[in-house]
């Protein structure tokens, strides 16, 4: 079992003719993901590594029955791609693109929500149900099928943690990067709710960072409604206040947004927080 995606998920790649879109469409296909089509306006009719390209989401959905899409288009066009996917009947939209202005993202968030669709990202690595379906840019081989869920605001740090889990023989049910921007489609709490209900998930690793209050909300939720094991890792303990640390959302603008405050929020409710990524497997099995 898993959450959001499995071996039956049918995926469209928006921006499939670009450098990243074509590379990762192939990589997802090789992993076993059902990549059923791609969209690049004006390039309909061609094939990219055996994947048919369409001019629009509407055509792609009609021809392939896709239910998920992954967006690789540049920031300037990413909002249009998100909205087209939501309008075109795609239930799960994953936006990899980094650099969408925050006010555009506010509008995108409400646009997608009003259509009852789910957006993951933007500025995220995507998600993977190991051995079944990979939608995103993470390296497939570091993952191992299993029963631990992983949720993270980061990309490469998630790989680091997954790598540590796999090395310790701990497999994953689904790993999700929710994105490093201030406004994202799906937060920690919603994903925790899904993992709570998933019979295939025994516990969760949550990877947070400085900025915002997603972690504080997650801690409240865990205390009130989450029955499974959780281990947390927080990055940014050495980050100076007021400086944007790469992610647009990784900026300390209040006392509650520091790494220390977040570590404390989890420790106060008895959730273990690892100091190093390689301590996480041990903390999970305690």
């Amino acid at each position, binding site marked *: 079992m898993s959450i959001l995606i499995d071996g039956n998920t049918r995926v469209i790649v928006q921006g499939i003719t670009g450098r990243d879109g074509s590379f990762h469409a192939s990589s997802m296909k090789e992993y076993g993901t059902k990549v059923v089509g791609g969209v690049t306006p004006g390039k309909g009719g061609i094939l990219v590594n055996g994947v048919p390209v369409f001019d629009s989401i509407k055509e792609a959905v009609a021809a392939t029955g896709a239910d998920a899409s992954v967006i690789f288009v540049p920031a300037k066009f990413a909002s249009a791609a998100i909205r087209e996917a939501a309008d075109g009947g795609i239930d799960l939209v994953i936006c990899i693109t980094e*650099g969408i202005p925050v006010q555009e993202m506010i509008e995108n968030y409400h646009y997608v929500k009003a259509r009852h669709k789910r957006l993951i990202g933007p500025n995220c690595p995507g998600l993977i149900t190991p051995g079944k379906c990979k939608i995103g840019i993470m390296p497939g081989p*570091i993952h191992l099928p299993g029963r631990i869920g992983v949720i993270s605001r*980061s990309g490469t740090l998630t790989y680091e943690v997954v*790598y540590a889990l796999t090395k310790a023989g701990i497999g994953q049910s689904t790993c999700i990067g929710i994105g490093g921007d201030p406004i994202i489609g799906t937060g920690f709490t919603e994903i925790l709710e899904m993992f709570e209900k998933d019979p295939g998930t025994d516990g969760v690793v949550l990877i947070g960072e400085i900025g915002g209050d997603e972690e504080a909300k997650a801690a409240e939720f865990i205390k009130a409604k989450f029955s499974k094991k959780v281990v947390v890792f927080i990055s940014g303990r050495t980050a100076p206040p007021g400086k944007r640390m*790469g992610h647009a959302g990784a900026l300390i603008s209040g006392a509650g947004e520091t790494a220390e405050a977040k570590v404390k929020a989890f420790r106060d409710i008895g959730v273990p927080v690892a100091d190093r990524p390689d301590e996480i497997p041990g903390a999970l099995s305690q």
Partner: protein
Amino acid sequence: MKLFEYQSASLLSEYGIPVPHGEIARDPATAAEIIGRHGGTGVLKAQVLTGGRGKAGGVKLIRVGDDALKAATAILGMTIKENPVNALYVTEMTEIKKEYYISVVVDRNAKCSQLIFSSAGGMEIEEIAATAPEKIGRHPIDPFTGLDEASLRRTFETSFETGMLAYQALAIARNVYRLFKEKDCSLVEINPLALTAEGTLVALDAKIVIDDNALALRPELEVFRNPEEYSRDEIDARTASLSFVSLGGRIGCIVNGAGLAMATSDLIKYYGEEPANFLDIGGSSNSRKVVHALTILMRNPQVSAILMNIFGGITRCDDIAKGVIMAKESLDIRVPFVIRLIGTNDELGRRILGDQGLEAYTDLNEAIKKVISEAKRVSP
């Protein structure tokens, strides 16, 4: 990106919000000359991109008979929270009867913008929130339909003594939001919004922050860019599409991905050393970024060893390895250089490095311990 007060004031004015007349002075004589032209009175305000200016003595009221030249010289010689004062904004003096607060901010938790109004202006909003939270009104803004003017009008009608002032305040709120939207801001804050002795509302100080993501997509916003906000390294890093923050230690870091870059800095500290910097080469990296990153790190005389930590995803390890080879050929890398390489195309990357006699670690802890021991070896 933060704007200076004088830039913010000129934007407010462009959007129809009343501000006092002001001019910029970069030397004491110019400041004194401006004061002289205005009958020997005015306000000297240090232009720095940080808060706490007033408490640090960076604002001085000049009355008839005061020595404007001396006051301007003093402020222009100050450093406020590590920011040297390079310019003064010289404005006319305003007689204040009462101070209010108004801002529009992005509320990341409610996933909308929000207008904040308080009748307790003059102090920082965090201070109002701590001392008089009941005096803060928060008005969520629907991204598609805009300000809820009915609710704002009610607030202003109870907060201001006359209908005329409530009307003025609503016009200001409308214009603040228009500016916030049109210039892709993440913050527009007027504090204080002052009621003058003449009975009108004037924006006496303002803080504007423009969204960095919008800046990258909208070249017309470049005119507001302030080189003072960033160090030379940060500017060069941005030109090369790298994200860089100086951290003051001696272990140079080059990492792909912001979360991993923060975690790498944290781990260096965990093992008892200090990171020199945060440097994220970003995703989809081309080989040249590695060369740019190493160039910036090599300029820092404090760096005694460098760690490059790459976990390939959208970044391909072979691109990184090629970048390392290019850098080796074009730069004098005079300190120990420890590489950790894993993820997408890592075998290929490792082979490229191996052909040049370079090794790469797979385990992060080992790589960090190694770079620390190397730093201690070259400068104990």
